[in-house]
Each structure stands twice: as structure tokens, then as C-alpha cells.
């Protein structure tokens, strides 16, 4: 039996500590795939929603390959009820509703994703600048945001479409104008608190330039909000595009869109051929529902500060 000296005990403890450090280094670091799997495990509905959204995006991209018929061709008799031949029925001219719903995803997804990417990015940039620089710039930007937010989204969109003219890219432009103010407001309020945190102050203390602080210290810390905002506003963007096409001031009428299909199928045929309105309407509702659900789930797991907004 050997006696332990205090020194031995100390070195044993040190060895254990070193072992721990080595072990913790060897533990797998969270990877993207690992994070995604964890998200799907803790938020199953969020995972399902994400899958629906990804499927829709894929359907939009590969629409020309997937559709059984050309969405503009008169392939059936008019008003065929949903059946094995025409899965979702045919419209008043005999066009295939299933093919048109798939083709409609293209416009919705393109307009939604483009406008959110541009709008939220621009809003984040302005929000960071406004909060970090402060003073007269902040005050001016905030008053403009106040004024822009006094317009209901649809009304603003209608006014802009009247001025710009109907086209897909003009809808994107109108949506950017609608989405930017909200993004500025959310990001600004977060940056206001981030800029008082120790790490920002430390960066200032060692003489980092404002640009560097905004890009390297503040921007990474609003990434979570950026992702959540993008998801939540994507639903809004899709609904506004559909509303504009429904009203006939969005995409030119020969392009199949979900909103446009509802106009044609809507008032006249709703009693006798409800499938004309129900399927495109369901498509919009399901995708917006999924986006809202994913947005909520992402918010809960990425950024608790946004809860309840």
C-alpha cells in the first residue's frame, strides 16, 4: 500500500482536468446536420412545415418537368370534376387544374423569396445603421418608418402597382417597400441593446472602427432575428402577391398564379365547380400555414427575445 503525497493528489486532479479538456474537445461539435436533426426532434411540427416548404420550392423549380399537362393547354373538357384523368379537375376552358396549381407555385415562391431576401436584408442594414449611429439619422429614419407603417400593406401595394405597372418584378419592388419598415423596427430595437453590451464596448475600447463593429460584432448577433423575420414575412409576401393577382393588378393574366386562379374560379363557378377555387386556395393556405408554423418554431428555438412580437 503506497501513501499518497499531497503533490500526487494534485497531479492526479490535474490529469483528470486535462482528460476532461481532451474529452470535451473530442465531443462532436454541433454541426449543421446535427442542429437540423435536433430542431426536428424538439419541434416536430416545425420540421414537417419545413419539409412542406422545401417540397413546394422544389415543385416550383422543377414545375415544367413535373406537370402532367401544359398549364395553358386546353387538354380536358371544361368543368371536369376531380378524377383519375384530371387529378384536381379542369377549369372553365378545360385547362388542367393540377398543372396550374404546380405552375402557380413558381410565381408565389419567386416573388416571396426574392422580396423577403431583398426587403429583410435592406431593413436589417438600415436598422443596424439607424440604431448604431443614432442622433438625427435615427430620428429621421424612425419618423419615415412610422409614416410607412400607417399604410395597410394591400393599400400600399395597390398604390405602388398603379404607379409602377403590373409585372412580376414590380410586385417584388412593391413588397420590398412594404417589408422594409417592419424589419428596420425589429432589428433596430435589438441593436439598441446590443450596442450597450460589454463586447461592443470592448471593441470600441480597443479602437475598432464603427464599420468593423457593425459588421463583425453586431451583425452576427442579429442573424437569428434575420432568419426568423425572413420566415415570418415570407407568408405575408405570398399572401400579398396572391391578393394582388386575385384583384387583377399583379402578374399579367396569362401567367398561372394561385391568386389569379381564384379570381377566375371564384365568384361565378363557386357553387357548381368549387374545385376551381378550393385547390389554389388550399395551396396558398397550406404553404402560409407551414411558413407561420416554421416561423414560430424557429423563433422559439433561435431567439427567445422575439417571443410574443
Amino acid at each position: 500500500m503506497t501513501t499518497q503525497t499531497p503533490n500526487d493528489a494534485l497531479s492526479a486532479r490535474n490529469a483528470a482536468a486535462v482528460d476532461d479538456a481532451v474529452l470535451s474537445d473530442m465531443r462532436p461539435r454541433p454541426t449543421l446536420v446535427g442542429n437540423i436533426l435536433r430542431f426536428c426532434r424538439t419541434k416536430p411540427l416545425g420540421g414537417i412545415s419545413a419539409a412542406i416548404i422545401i417540397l413546394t420550392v422544389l415543385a416550383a423549380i422543377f414545375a415544367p418537368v413535373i406537370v402532367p399537362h401544359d398549364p395553358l393547354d386546353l387538354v380536358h373538357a371544361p368543368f371536369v370534376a376531380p378524377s383519375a384523368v384530371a387529378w384536381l379537375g379542369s377549369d372553365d376552358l378545360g385547362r388542367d387544374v393540377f398543372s396550374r396549381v404546380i405552375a402557380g407555385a413558381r410565381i408565389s415562391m419567386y416573388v416571396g423569396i426574392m422580396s423577403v431576401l431583398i426587403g429583410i436584408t435592406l431593413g436589417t442594414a438600415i436598422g443596424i445603421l439607424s440604431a448604431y449611429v443614432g442622433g438625427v439619422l435615427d430620428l429621421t429614419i424612425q419618423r419615415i418608418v412610422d409614416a410607412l407603417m400607417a399604410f395597410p400593406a394591400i393599400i400600399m401595394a395597390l398604390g405602388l402597382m398603379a404607379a409602377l405597372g403590373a409585372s412580376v418584378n414590380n410586385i417584388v419592388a412593391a413588397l420590398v417597400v412594404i417589408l422594409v419598415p417592419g424589419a428596420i423596427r425589429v432589428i433596430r430595437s435589438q441593436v439598441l441593446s446590443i450596442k450597450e453590451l460589454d463586447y461592443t464596448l470592448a471593441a470600441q475600447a480597443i479602437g475598432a472602427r464603427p464599420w468593423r463593429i457593425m459588421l463583425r460584432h453586431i451583425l452576427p448577433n442579429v442573424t437569428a432575428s434575420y432568419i426568423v423575420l425572413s420566415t415570418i414575412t415570407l407568408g405575408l409576401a405570398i399572401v400579398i402577391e396572391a391578393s394582388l393577382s386575385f384583384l387583377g393588378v399583379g402578374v399579367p393574366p396569362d401567367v398561372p398564379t394561385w391568386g389569379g386562379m381564384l379570381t377566375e374560379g371564384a365568384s361565378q363557378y363557386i357553387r357548381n365547380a368549387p374545385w376551381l377555387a378550393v385547390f389554389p386556395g388550399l395551396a396558398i393556405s397550406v404553404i402560409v400555414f407551414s411558413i407561420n408554423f416554421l416561423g414560430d418554431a424557429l423563433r422559439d428555438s433561435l431567439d427567445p427575445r422575439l417571443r410574443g412580437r
Partner: protein
Amino acid sequence: MRQYALKRIALIIPTVLLVTIIVFTVMRLLPGDPALVILSEGDASFTQEELEDLRRQLGTDRPIVVQYVDWIGGLVQGDLGTSIWRSGQPVSKLVGDRIFRTLELAVLAILIAVLFAVPLGVISAIKPDSVIDYFSRVIALVGISIPTFFAGLLVVLVLSRGFGWLPPLGYEDLWDNPWKNLQQMFLPALALGFYDMAFIARVTRSSMMEIIREDYMRTARAKGLGERIVLVRHGLKNAVLPILTISGWQFGRLFGGTVIIESIFKVPGIGTLLIETVFQRDFPTIQAIIIVIAVSIVIINLLVDLLYGLLDPRIRYA
């Protein structure tokens, strides 16, 4: 309270001014000038003289700042400009004739929404995980995902196919034929209020949930008050504040929704006027309608804030 009110009222002046500048700028965004747009529609043959005449008539031959100041001067006096198409009718008359119907639709919608949402929210808060709770949570989730125009079509579909009931045709004003008018307005108001019902039910549920755990609720029960009085007088009364704020905000959003609902249900309100004028590119009228709506919303938000301050002393002294 007076100071709070004055401060709040002073804040809307720059907002309203900026609103007018934004609308004015947007309407000047259009490629070319309005006179050219108007003349090139239709058979598209016109002389230089006609073009300059129309420019003078529209006032677009003057510098833009002069145009803006002139327009604002008119606005302050209640002159909203003249319509290009409707044989030069003053826009204020066009808008005035129709805005009441839009307001009626919006008020009915918010009434229906609150009437359904508050009881639903309260019941699901006091009986969490019950059938009614699940029902109202599903309604809330579905309600905020269904776009207004699809909700409108679904309402028509369900009521006409399921119950064989259709609203009477031909629009009648409330004061001409109240009963027929209400029958006609019920469906659009229901469709319009659906989203808000979902939203308000959600807010009611979460704010009641918080209040139920408060000490004063236990105190009220401990001193022997009946459950209904505890819930209504002590619970709901405190939950009303957030519900009121949300309803006020939603009221602004309803103005956007009416545009779509009016066009589905053929209600001759300000929304259908806006759509018609957008198609006709009647810029003075579009400009005026948007201003009227935006300013109404700024004012409604102000009223909600003031009411909130009046009801809750914590706000006005903050």
C-alpha cells in the same frame, strides 16, 4: 393625462406630413407623366396642344414643390382634388359617398370578431387542454393562415352549398333598408373578421392565462365572490386592455382587407373605388383614397393610445 394626450397628439403631425410626402412621391414614380399616360390609353392619337392642355389641367406643368404645396393646401381645406375620369367630379364627394359603407363593414367585422373571440379565448384560458381550448387554438392557427379572399370564397361556398342561403342581390344602404343591408353585409363582415377573430382569441387566451394566476383573483375568491363575478369583474376587466389595443390595430388592417372583401361581395365602398381607379389610372383619386385611409389609421391608432392611457394610469405616467 392632459400632458400625455398633448404629447401623443403632437407626435402625429410629422407622421401625417410624411404620409402625404410618401403618397405624393409614389404617385410621381410613374414612368412619364400622368397626362401622357391618360392620352396614350385608348386610340392613342393626340396633339402636342392637347398634351399641354391636359398638363395644365392636372397642374403637372408646374415645379413639383409647387404642386405639393398646392395639394397640401387643398387637403387642409378638405379639397381632395378632382377625378380625371368621372367628368371632373370632386374626389371628396366620391370618397364621402362611399366611405360610410366601408366603415360599416369594418365595424361589423370587428364586432363579429370580438363577439366570438373573447368568449372563446376566455373559455380556453380557464379550461386549458379541453375540447374547446383545442378547437379555439386550431381556429386561431387556421384563421391567421387563410388569406382574406379565400376566407370570403369559403364563407360563400359553405353557406350557399351547405345551407342554401345567399344574401339578397342589389346593394342597399343601411338607412334605406336596414334589414336587407345587414343581411348583405353579414357575409362580407364574417369573412373579413375571421382573421381578426383568430388573432383576438389568441391574445385573449394568453392574457387571461396570465391574469388567472394573479393574487387578486385568489383574493376575490377567498372573500367569497361567485366564480362568474371573479372572472368577469376581476379577470376580464384586466384582460380588456391588451384586447382593446389589438382590436384597434386590427381595425387599421381591416381597411386593407375591405378592398378585397368589397370586390368579392360587390359592396360599393371605398375599396372597390380604389380598385376601379387603379385600373383607370385615375391618379388624383388613388392619391386621395390612400391619404384618407392612411390618415384614418393614424387617427384610430391615436384614439386607441389615448383610450389606453385613460383606462390604465400606468401608461400615462410612464
